[in-house]
C-alpha cells in the first residue's frame, strides 16, 4: 500500500529549469481574473509579481500550483507542462508555495507542519508506517534533522512544539515559509510573505528569502505589496492590473513607469514606501 | 468461576435429581423480554401475565416444594443485549418461559440445542424455530395461521379459485414465514398471491393499496404491525377497495379501535389466532382477564396476556412432570414436555408437544374486532384446521 509514492523526483537541485508563463487566462463567472498574461522566470532568479488588489496575482499562483485550472494559456516548468496537473503532481515537480491567507493546521505543532512539507520527499506508506518498518524510522529521523536545520534557518526553532494557531500572525507567516522550504523546492512561490510584520521583522524575513536564493540557487516568484522588499530582492518585476500585464522589467524601471505609479504606487508616497525595509 | 454445569443445588428431596441452578428452595427461570423496543406491546403483557402466574403458583406452594423465581432481562430488541442477557442468565436458570424476538432465539439456537439444552419458550411463532427439543412454541406457527386464513376466505365464499389475493408482510421471519403459508395455500386453492413486502418504517399503506387495487385483489392478507393493518384497512376502505383484510398474530391491537381506522377495521378486518381472545366469554379467558385487571389496574387487555399465561402454564406443567419423574433438570423438563400429548390450557385449543418438528397445534380461530368486547376481539368462527395443512411441511 504505497498509496502515494512521489510520482516524479527527477529534481536534483541545481539544474533548476526556467518557468515559462504563456498567455495565461483565467475566467470566473462574470470576470476575467487573468487575461493573457506572459512572463518568464529565469533559473535561480527572483521574480516579483505586483499589482493592485484584485489584479490576479494570487490567481496566477493558484494556477501555477494547480489549485485553479487555466481557461487558456500554458505554464511550462522546464520540460513539464504544469497547466492541468493536480496540485500534488506539481508539488512532486518541486514547486512549493505559501498562502496569502495563512493555511496552517491550527492544532498541529509547527514541527508537524514542517514535516508535512517533507511529504513528497518521503516514501513511507500505510504499511511501512503501520508496521514501523526500520526503513520508515530511519527516513523520519533523517528528515527531522533537516526540518531542524530549516527551523533554525528561518528562526522558528523556538516554536517547533507550539500549535500554529497560538502564534502571532507574523510568526505564522514565517511557519508557512518554513513549510514551503521543507519541500526542497526548485521553484518557490511566495504570496505576500512579509504582510503583517514590523519593518525589522520584514528585514529579517527578507534576509531569509535572500539567503534561500543564495544558498539554494532556486527560482523564487514573489508577490508582495511592500515595495521596499520588492525593490531590494527582485531581479525582475511584472506588474498586473485587472488581470493584464501593464509593465515588466528591472525594479528601478518599473517603479518609475507612470502606468505603474498611476495604477499601483500612487505618486504621493512611493519614496516613503521605498524607504521601508531597505537595508544594505 | 462456575462452568455452566450441574453443580447448583444439593441432591435434596429424596432421590430427586436437580441441577442447573435449582436449589432446595427455588427454581430459577429466565425471562428475556422486550419492554422498550419494537415489541414492547407484546413484552409488557406477556411478562406481567407470567409474573402473575408465578405469583399464584408460589402462593399455592410452588413446585416440588420450591418457589419458582423469574429473573427478567429487557433487551429492547437489541441483538447484542439479547445475546448478552442470554449468556448472563443461562448458567443460572433452568429454562426460559419467555424469549421475545425470534431472530435472537435463532441466534442462540446453536447453543441452546448444542450445549445448554434448557427449555426455551419463544414468544414468536416462526416455523424456522421448529424442530428443536429445547425450543418449543405454543400454538400454530405463522405459516399455518395463513393457510387457515386462505382456507377460511375460500370456504366463506370471499374469494374463489382464479382470484388474486394480496399479502402485505413485514420483512423478516414473521412476515416471510407467513407468506410461505399463504403462497402454499393459494396454490392449493388456485389463487394468486400479490406480494407487498414492507418495513416497520412504512406506516402509510397508500402506495401498497394502490398496487393491490391495480392487481384487482379480492382479499388482502397482512402480516405486519397494528399501525400498518390500521392504515391498510383504512386506506382500502377509503380508496373504495372494500375487500376483507385478514391478519395474523401481532397485526391487531385493541388501541386501534380508538383511531380513525376503527370503522373500517370493524367492517373489514379479520384476525387469525390459535387461542380464544382475552375478551371471550369462555371461562379461561374471562377468569384470566379478571385476575389480570385486578393485579394491573388500568392496563390494557390483549392477547399477549394469554400467550404469556399459557407459556407460563406449559412450563409449570412441564416442571411438575419433571418433579414427578424425580428429575428436576433441564433434561427432565424437556422429557416431561415431550410427554404432554393433549394439553388444554383453557383457551380453547388442545396442544400436542410430542413432536418438536410440528407446531403444538395447527388450529386457528377467526376473530373480529369488536369495540364492545374486552381486548377488542370476538370470535367470528371457532377453531378449525384447513384440510390443506396435511400436505404442508414448514421449511425450518
Amino acid at each position, binding site marked *: 500500500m504505497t498509496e502515494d509514492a512521489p510520482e516524479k523526483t527527477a529534481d536534483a*537541485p*541545481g539544474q533548476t529549469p526556467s518557468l515559462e508563463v504563456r498567455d495565461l487566462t483565467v475566467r470566473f463567472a462574470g470576470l476575467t481574473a487573468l487575461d493573457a498574461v506572459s512572463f518568464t522566470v529565469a533559473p535561480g532568479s527572483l521574480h516579483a509579481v505586483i*499589482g*493592485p*488588489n*484584485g*489584479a490576479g496575482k*494570487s490567481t496566477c499562483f493558484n494556477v501555477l500550483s494547480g489549485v485553479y485550472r487555466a481557461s487558456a494559456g500554458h505554464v511550462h516548468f522546464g520540460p513539464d507542462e504544469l497547466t492541468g496537473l493536480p496540485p500534488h503532481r506539481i508539488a512532486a515537480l518541486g514547486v512549493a508555495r505559501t498562502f*496569502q*491567507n*495563512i493555511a496552517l493546521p491550527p492544532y498541529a505543532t509547527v514541527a508537524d507542519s514542517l514535516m508535512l512539507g517533507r511529504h513528497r*520527499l518521503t516514501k513511507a506508506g500505510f504499511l511501512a508506517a503501520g508496521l514501523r518498518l526500520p526503513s520508515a524510522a530511519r527516513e523520519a529521523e533523517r528528515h527531522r534533522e*533537516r526540518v531542524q536545520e*530549516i527551523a*533554525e*534557518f528561518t528562526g522558528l526553532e523556538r516554536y517547533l512544539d507550539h500549535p500554529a494557531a*497560538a*502564534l*502571532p*500572525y*507574523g*510568526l505564522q507567516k514565517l511557519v508557512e515559509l518554513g513549510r514551503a*522550504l521543507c519541500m*526542497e523546492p526548485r521553484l518557490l512561490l511566495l504570496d*505576500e510573505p512579509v*504582510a*503583517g*510584520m*514590523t*519593518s*525589522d*521583522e*520584514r*528585514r*529579517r524575513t527578507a*534576509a*531569509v528569502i*535572500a*539567503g*534561500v536564493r*543564495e*544558498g*539554494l540557487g532556486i527560482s523564487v516568484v514573489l508577490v508582495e*505589496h511592500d*515595495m521596499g522588499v520588492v525593490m531590494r530582492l527582485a531581479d525582475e518585476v511584472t506588474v498586473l492590473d485587472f488581470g493584464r500585464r501593464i509593465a515588466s522589467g528591472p525594479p528601478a524601471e518599473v517603479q518609475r513607469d507612470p502606468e505603474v505609479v498611476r*495604477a*499601483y*504606487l*500612487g505618486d*504621493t*508616497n*512611493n519614496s*516613503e*514606501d521605498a*524607504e*521601508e*525595509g*531597505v*537595508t*544594505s | 468461576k462456575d462452568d455452566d454445569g450441574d453443580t447448583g443445588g444439593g441432591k435434596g428431596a429424596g432421590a430427586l435429581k436437580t441441577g442447573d441452578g435449582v436449589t432446595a428452595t427455588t427454581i430459577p427461570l429466565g425471562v428475556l423480554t422486550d419492554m422498550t423496543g419494537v415489541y414492547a406491546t407484546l413484552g409488557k403483557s406477556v411478562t406481567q401475565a407470567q409474573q402473575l402466574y408465578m405469583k399464584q403458583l408460589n402462593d399455592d406452594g410452588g413446585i416440588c416444594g420450591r418457589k419458582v423465581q423469574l429473573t427478567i432481562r429487557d433487551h429492547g430488541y437489541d441483538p447484542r443485549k439479547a445475546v448478552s442477557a442470554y449468556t448472563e442468565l443461562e448458567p443460572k436458570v433452568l429454562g426460559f418461559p419467555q424469549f421475545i424476538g425470534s431472530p435472537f432465539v435463532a441466534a442462540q439456537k446453536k447453543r441452546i440445542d448444542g450445549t445448554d439444552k434448557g427449555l426455551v419458550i419463544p414468544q414468536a411463532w416462526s416455523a424456522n424455530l421448529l424442530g428443536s427439543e429445547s425450543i418449543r412454541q405454543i400454538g400454530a406457527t405463522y405459516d399455518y395461521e395463513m393457510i387457515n386464513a386462505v382456507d377460511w376466505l375460500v370456504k366463506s365464499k370471499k374469494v374463489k379459485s382464479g382470484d388474486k389475493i394480496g399479502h402485505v408482510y413485514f420483512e423478516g421471519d414473521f412476515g416471510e414465514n407467513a407468506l410461505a403459508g399463504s403462497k402454499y395455500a393459494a396454490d392449493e386453492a388456485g389463487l394468486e398471491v400479490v406480494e407487498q413486502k414492507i418495513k416497520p418504517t412504512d406506516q402509510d399503506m397508500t402506495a401498497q393499496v394502490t398496487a393491490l387495487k391495480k392487481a384487482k385483489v379480492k382479499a388482502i392478507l397482512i402480516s405486519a404491525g397494528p399501525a400498518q393493518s390500521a392504515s391498510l384497512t383504512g386506506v382500502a376502505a377509503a380508496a373504495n377497495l372494500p375487500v376483507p383484510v385478514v391478519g395474523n398474530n401481532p397485526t391487531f391491537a385493541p388501541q386501534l379501535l380508538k383511531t380513525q381506522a376503527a370503522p373500517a377495521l370493524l367492517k373489514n378486518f379479520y384476525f387469525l389466532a390459535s387461542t380464544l381472545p382475552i375478551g371471550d366469554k369462555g371461562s379461561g379467558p374471562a377468569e384470566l382477564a379478571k385476575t389480570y385487571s385486578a393485579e394491573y389496574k388500568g392496563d390494557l387487555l390483549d392477547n399477549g396476556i394469554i400467550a404469556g399465561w399459557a407459556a407460563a402454564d406449559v412450563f409449570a406443567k412441564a416442571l411438575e412432570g419433571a418433579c414427578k419423574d424425580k428429575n428436576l433438570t433441564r433434561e427432565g423438563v424437556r422429557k416431561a414436555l415431550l410427554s404432554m400429548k393433549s394439553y388444554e390450557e383453557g383457551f380453547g385449543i388442545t396442544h400436542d408437544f410430542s413432536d418438536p418438528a410440528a407446531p403444538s397445534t395447527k388450529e386457528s380461530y377467526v376473530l373480529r374486532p369488536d369495540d364492545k368486547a374486552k381486548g377488542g376481539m370476538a370470535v367470528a368462527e371457532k377453531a378449525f384446521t384447513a384440510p390443506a395443512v396435511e400436505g404442508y411441511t414448514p421449511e425450518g
Partner: protein
Amino acid sequence: MPHAALQVGALTAGYGPVRALREVTLTVGDGAVVAVLGGNGAGKTTLLRAISRTLGFHGGAVAGGEISFGETRLDRLAAPEVVAAGVVQVPEGRRVFARMTVADNLRAGALGAPRGSRSVSLERVHDLFPVLLERAAQPAGLLSGGEQQMLALARGLMAQPKLLLLDEPTLGLAPLAAERIAERIREINRQGTSVLLVEQNAAIALRVASEAYVLETGRVALSGPAAELAASDEVRRRYLGVVDEDAAADAERIADAAPVLRRWQP
C-alpha cells in the same frame, strides 16, 4: 453623539499560562486617532480582543485591570453589548463570512446599527470601496485578499461605531489602497468616530494618528504624541525602517547572523 473616551487601565490578560498583556494603560480621547505599534506577539491583537470581549473565543481571559468607554464598563459586558455600546472592531485577518455574498456581509455588519440609517452608511462604504458594489452578489470568500480586507473594513463601518478598533487594516493592501484607507480613516474620524489603530505600517499609522503607543511583549514600552514618537530613533529604526548608520550595520549583522541554508543531499 454623546462624548465618550476609551479608558484602558492596568489591563492584564493572557491565554492560559501565557501573559500576553501586562498592566497596559491607554486612553483614546473622544474623536482621537490612536495608533498602537509593536512587533509580532507584542499583544496588539490581544488588546483589541480584550476591549471587544472576544478573548473567550481564543481560550484567553482578562486577568486584571479595567476597560471603560465613557460611563460604560466594557469589561463587564458581552461582545455583542460592546458593539451596542458603539465600540466596533475590524478583526485581524479579515474574517469575512466567506459563504455569504458581499451584500449580505455588509448587512451583517449593520446588525449592530440603528435600523433607519443603513442605506446611508451603505452608500458611504460603496463610494469608499466601489469594488464592493461591483461584487455585491459574489460570495465574499471568492474575493481577493485585499478586496476581503476592504470588505472587512466596510462591514465594520456599517455599524456606525463611536469607536472603531482596527487591527492591521492595511494588511495586504496595495500602497495606493493603503493610502486611501489612511485618508478614509482621517475622514471617518472627522465625522466624529474615534479610532484605535493597530498597524504594522508604522509610516501610515503615525501619519494618521494623534497619539501612539508602542507595545513590546505585552507592556507599553513607549507612548506619546505621534509626531514625537515618529521622531525618536527607536521607532524610526524598528518601526519606520528608516536607516541610519548603526541601524544599517545592525541590519548587516542580522543578515550575516541569519544562517545560510545549504542544499539538502538526499
